[in-house]
Structure formats: C-alpha cells, structure tokens
C-alpha cells in the first residue's frame, strides 16, 4: 500500500506537469492509450504508464500486457531523461526493450522537453511584473545555490583529501589502481612460471 501511495503521488505530479505545460498533451497524443510497462530491476517492481488523452495514469502492476516494455536498473532508467541515450543503453545491454520502441521514445522525448512557463502561472496570482520579478529572483537563488553547492563540495573534498587525509586524492587512487594492475600482472606471470616449473619437474 505504501508503494501504491507513492505511485499515486508521482501520478499527481505528472498530471500537474500536464496541466502546467500545455504542449505536453500534444507531444503525448501520438502514443495515447499505448501501454508502457517499466520494470525497475533493482526494486523488483513494474509500473504501467498510459496517457489516456486527458490524463496520465501510472500504476504499480503485476499485469504483463503492454505495447512496449523497458527493463533496467534505476540508474539506467534515469539516464533516459536524455532520449538520445535510449539506443546506446540497449546496445550496452543495460536496457531491455520489447515491443514498439516509438512508445518508449515518445514518453522519453515528451518528458525531456517539459517546459513550464512559471512566470505565466505565477502571474495569475501576483500580476505580470511581480511574477516576472519572483521568477528572476528564484532563478538567481537557484544559480547562487548551485555555485555554493559546487564551492562547498570542492572545499569538503579539499579538506578530506589534503588537510584531514580522510580520503585519498583521485590521482593517488589512479596510481594505486595502476600498481594493483601491475601487481596482478606480475602475480599471473609468476603463477605461469611456477606451473611451468612444476610441469617440468613432474615430467622428469
């Protein structure tokens, strides 16, 4: 029931996006009533996504009736936010796809291109000028937040790697990997040599 509740929440968010972006319905229209089954392997869950022409319907289901089924890990499926990745992920065997590829591409393209005109929606409640100003402030706050986040991450990495020595630097890690690979090669060579010597010894 918890999963069901979460799925209902996601469905609500999707339908809110549908209301806020007036072009989304048109983008989804060619794949209306087509059933896309999404299997998330690491969660062992299946979700059915259908656009009925007016609304998006999302269900957690055990049904196996679909027009298109995609199956992959959550990270792989998240990568589908970039529609160009679809064929690449299939070739890399990270994503299984059965049925009509156009349906998966249709949903992926539509969601990747969601473009909500927030100032216009704010303007209904605030008026044009304050809505525009609010939107600019939010955008600038987001930019500042991203910059602060980058700075904080860099400072923390610097602190952990160079000052506190809690973690190692990526270059050190690369060197360690290289040494390990070299050691592995040497051990393999030694193993081969020992085997040859043992074989010679047993032949005598």
């Amino acid at each position, binding site marked *: 029931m918890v999963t069901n509740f979460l799925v209902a929440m996601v469905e609500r968010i999707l339908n809110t996006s549908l209301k806020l972006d007036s072009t989304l319905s048109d983008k989804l229209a060619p794949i209306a009533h087509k*059933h896309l089954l999404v299997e998330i392997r690491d969660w062992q869950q299946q979700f059915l996504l259908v656009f009925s022409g007016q609304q998006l319907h999302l269900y957690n289901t055990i049904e196996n009736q679909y027009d298109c089924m995609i199956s992959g890990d959550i990270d792989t499926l998240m990568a589908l936010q970039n529609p160009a990745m679809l064929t690449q992920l299939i070739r890399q065997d990270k994503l299984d796809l059965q049925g009509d590829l156009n349906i998966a591409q249709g949903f992926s393209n539509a969601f990747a291109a969601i473009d909500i005109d927030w100032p216009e929606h704010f303007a209904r409640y605030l008026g044009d000028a304050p809505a525009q100003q609010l939107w600019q402030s939010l955008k600038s706050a987001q930019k500042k937040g991203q910059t602060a986040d980058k700075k904080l991450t860099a400072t923390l990495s610097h602190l952990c790697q160079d000052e506190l020595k809690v973690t190692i630097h990526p270059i050190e890690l690369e060197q360690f990997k290289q040494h390990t690979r070299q050691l592995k090669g040497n051990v393999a060579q030694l193993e081969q040599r020992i085997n040859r010597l043992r074989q010679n010894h047993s032949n005598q």
Partner: protein
Amino acid sequence: MNENQQKTTHFGYQTVAETDKASMVADVFHSVAAKYDVMNDLMSFGIHRLWKRQTIASSGVRKGHHVLDLAGGTGDLTAKFSQLVGETGQVVLGDINSSMLKVGREKLHNLGLVGNIDYVQMNAEALPFPDNSFDLITIAFGLRNVTDKDKALRSMYRILKPGGRLLVLEFSKPEHEVLSKAYDFYSFNLLPTMGKLVANDSESYKYLAESIRMHPDQDTLKAMMNEAGFEQTTYQNLTGGIVALHRGFKY
C-alpha cells in the same frame, strides 16, 4: 407458511426474509448517498482510493474494452475506466440504488466524463445484458449487499466475454488477530459515531460493520467464484486483509 416466508437471509446481524433484503439495503444507501464520498474518505482515512487504484492496476483494461462497474455507486472506478477505454470503449455504471446512480452521474458529468458512460439501474442477480458482453466486470464494496451472491456471480460469469475477468473488491477477514481486534473496536464503536456525526445516520454504519462480518472470508469467496465457473481465481489481501481483491477469468 408459504415458501417466501421460509427463505431467509442476513441483513447485518439480523435475519430477514430474502424478499425484504434488497429494499432494506436500498434504504441504507438512499440514506447515505449524499454523504457517501465524504464518509468513505473519513472511514477509511482515504485508503479506499488506494484499494481502488489496485483494482484498476489489476484490471488489464485497454482502449475499446467494454467494462461493467457493478454497484458502482458514485463512480470512482467508472471515472478512471472511462478514460482508459477511450472513445471506442464503453463503461456501464450499474447500481441497484437510484440515489447512488444519481449522485454518481452528477459527479461524473461535473468531471466532464460523458460520451462513453451508460448509467443503468440493475440487480446484480439478474444482469440485463446478453451473454459474452463485457471484457471486464468490477464490483467494489457491493457483493456483500447482494442477497443471493452465488446467483449474482453466475450472472456476471454469463455476461463476461471469454478471456474477460471479474474483479471483486470487498471487505474481508484481517490476517492477524491484533489487527482484527483493533478493527472490531473501530467498526462497532467509532464507525457508527462518525456516521451519526457526519451523515446523521448511525444505523446505516452499524449495518456496514455487521454486513462486513457476515460476508464470506477470502477462501470462501474464492470457492464461490470457482463454483460459478471462474478460472484461475486468486485473491490479494490489502491492508492486512481488511479488504481483499479477488480476480477470476472466464475462458
């Protein structure tokens, strides 16, 4: 003593003449129709929406399908099915109670759902449709109010198309003793009080609690569905068995 007087059934914990039950159930629903949705949300803390979502998720409904939403009440399932079957499909919202149908029709019209929904007042024991008419039949929280459940199940089987399925969403028996005790306390003490306060009708909600206890448990209902002819019959307990979703196919 004539034959009618001998045939009895239960109405909650009361034993009544079979011929009287339908009208007594009708009285209950005439009484609660106006506040039905509010009371459903209150009584189940909104969880009835999740139970219904699970029913739709298990329906396998597609564009062009013909769906019968029996005892459909205020049309929660019909609203979703109407969108999923599209303009080439058809949904029949059926209920024995005219007040419930009226509330349902008004609600669905207000949601802009028109065109592929028919409203039919009908008795589940004698469904007024030809054989093999529907791809899907659902009956949510309605079967326990039906006087002759076996007859109703046989009637549903008759009008299902081969390959079609029946979904029965109904209150059932909780799986754990502790949950069962808490549920009993809630049903017999809090529920009628809530009914009194919100709908000014404690008797109807007392009937609701009693009728749930008199309804067959999960395995009995499964056996009844098999007896009516359904195949691959399974059930899924929801919220610890307070509600169960039974599914059966006609082949």
